[in-house]
């Protein structure tokens, strides 16, 4: 194992982390700010990916597809908020779990209805194709670097929005006491529709960006959803900073675990089994890390000041 490989893996971990962050950002916004457990966030991610793939196939341009993914996911989010979520803010988490669970079923089946059962094709735009040489001699895909950049931008923008703008303050105020913010003359209902649509758009954006290097298929949002939940819980719910750092921690842990554990296992078990056992432990690793973190810090690493 060379230093260059280790560094490349570290970069891979960071990149995976940023990818998770793109997904987690919208989730933590909705989840932390509006106090809503949205299991259907993965579906919005899927909507984004499908919209991007379909429009890109139709127009031949990934970029138009990307815009379409934002629009489609935001629209889907707004509709869902108006029709369903709006009635759930005053309910406990349970009803939210059930309703958004139901939405997953509807979104998955609805998407299949529209797009058929086979995965769609979505490719990286020519601008971001290929690999560049990194210092140290290895090559690294341009697109993955682009994802890192996009994640950083989203993180910064969201952080500013929530902590610095009056909109952000009102959103947070509504989180702790919806009735009161309404009694002060703020139209919290519309505000929440906007926030939900924004969170959905972020999910759609993530779906489109990540969809280009994964499989655009029904159900694609579910594995990411669980990981995104892990991320925001480790980071501290509602904290953008926490989501970013949590995502990086999960990304690096997962990548390094997959890479190193099988090698480590060789020391303990016969090499024939080392790969499988190492792989098994690696697949549980982030959950183990999460359990340890929450056992020590029950509100995550960076609990927002209010939680």
């Amino acid at each position, binding site marked *: 194992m060379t230093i260059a490989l280790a560094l490349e893996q570290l970069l891979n971990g960071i990149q995976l982390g940023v990818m998770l962050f793109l997904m987690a950002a919208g989730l933590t916004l909705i989840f932390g700010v509006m106090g809503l457990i949205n299991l259907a966030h993965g579906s919005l991610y899927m909507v984004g990916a499908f919209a991007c793939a379909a429009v890109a196939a139709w127009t031949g341009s990934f970029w138009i597809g990307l815009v379409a993914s934002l629009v489609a996911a935001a629209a889907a989010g707004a509709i869902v908020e108006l029709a369903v979520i709006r009635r759930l803010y005053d309910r406990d988490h349970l009803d939210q779990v059930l309703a958004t669970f139901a939405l997953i079923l509807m979104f998955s089946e609805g998407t299949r209805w529209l797009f058929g059962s086979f995965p769609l094709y979505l490719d990286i735009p020519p601008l971001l194709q290929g690999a560049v040489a990194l210092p140290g001699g290895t090559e690294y895909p341009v697109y993955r670097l682009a994802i890192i950049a996009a994640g950083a931008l989203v993180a910064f923008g969201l952080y500013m929005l929530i902590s610095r703008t009056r909109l952000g303050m009102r959103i947070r105020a509504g989180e702790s006491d919806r009735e009161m913010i309404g009694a002060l003359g703020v139209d919290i209902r519309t505000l929440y529709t906007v926030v939900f649509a924004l969170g959905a758009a972020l999910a759609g954006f993530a779906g489109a960006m990540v969809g280009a290097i994964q499989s655009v298929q029904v159900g694609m949002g579910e594995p990411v959803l669980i990981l995104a939940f892990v991320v925001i*819980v480790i980071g501290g719910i509602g904290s953008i900073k926490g989501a970013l750092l949590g995502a990086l921690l999960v990304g690096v842990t997962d990548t390094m675990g997959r890479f190193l554990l099988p090698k480590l296992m060789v020391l303990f078990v016969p090499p024939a089994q080392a790969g499988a056992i190492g792989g098994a432990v690696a697949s549980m690793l982030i959950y183990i890390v999460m*359990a340890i973190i929450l056992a020590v810090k029950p509100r995550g690493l960076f609990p927002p000041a209010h939680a």
Partner: protein
Amino acid sequence: MILTRENLINLILAVALLAIPLIANAAGQPFYITLATRVAILALAATGLNLALGVGGLVSFGHAAFFGIGGYVAGILASHSFSGEPVLFGLSGTNQMWIIWLVAMALAGLVGLAIGAISLRTSGVYFIMITLAFAQMVYYFAVSWPAYGGEDGLSILVRNQFPGVMTMVPMNFFLICYVILLVGIALFAVIRASRFGAALQAARQNEVRVATVGIQPYRIRLTGFVLSAMITGLAGALFADLNRFVSPSMLSWHMSGELIVLIILGGTGRLFGPLAGAALYVAFEYALGGITERWQFFLGLILLLVVLFARGGLVGLLAGKAKHG
């Protein structure tokens, strides 16, 4: 017991669950017995969860772990009994249901103790997610552990045995499950009405208050969580025997989600909520699956309508608001 509207509904549910397979048996439609057995077992699993979730307010998104552990206990003990190899430290497998049940409850309880001890340090959404994380650990362990079939699962070649009963006869097995379900529900009722139940409910409503009267909320909750895990584990063992098969999908987060869905569908914290929910869910799944390939869409739609417009679930809809004395 006074015949309130809720009690009446409960009675009807209990009788209906018994009547359907009896009629099906007479009409030579054994499949409905299987379906009713499935309802009974899922209702038992959800009753377990209802203790933690409905009474204690502990929204566990990881109860599939206990369900699956129960299932694997049944599968593993049965397979060892079949092959004759010892399980651990020279202990042999068994195909006796009641031993399997005890082991399943004990193991689910132990794992529940470990998971609960850590998870209950957190609360709210963090609790939901940490229980999910533990269940995922168990899930991935089962998927990649080769000894008992991994992802492919483990078949139980012959249904396990119960003294004096031919368990392969669907009606007999149903009756076993039905009796256990009723015992489980009765236990739930007794616990909820007891001092412990009062403390558990109070801890849900106001943790600080409970502590300031001198009750440790953590211990109360942990006990509730372990009891809950044991009941769900028992249901898992029965489920494995019903399907004569266990696989990691019993441990998946979908399963945890479904258990929660059953409870809300029936009415959170209600005595017969899990049964009502399980009956409704299985009926939907079965009926819709026969009508259209898009059944999952319509299942989602129905669930959605229930949350939005039938607050308090089926029992709540029929019986009105819950009373807390």
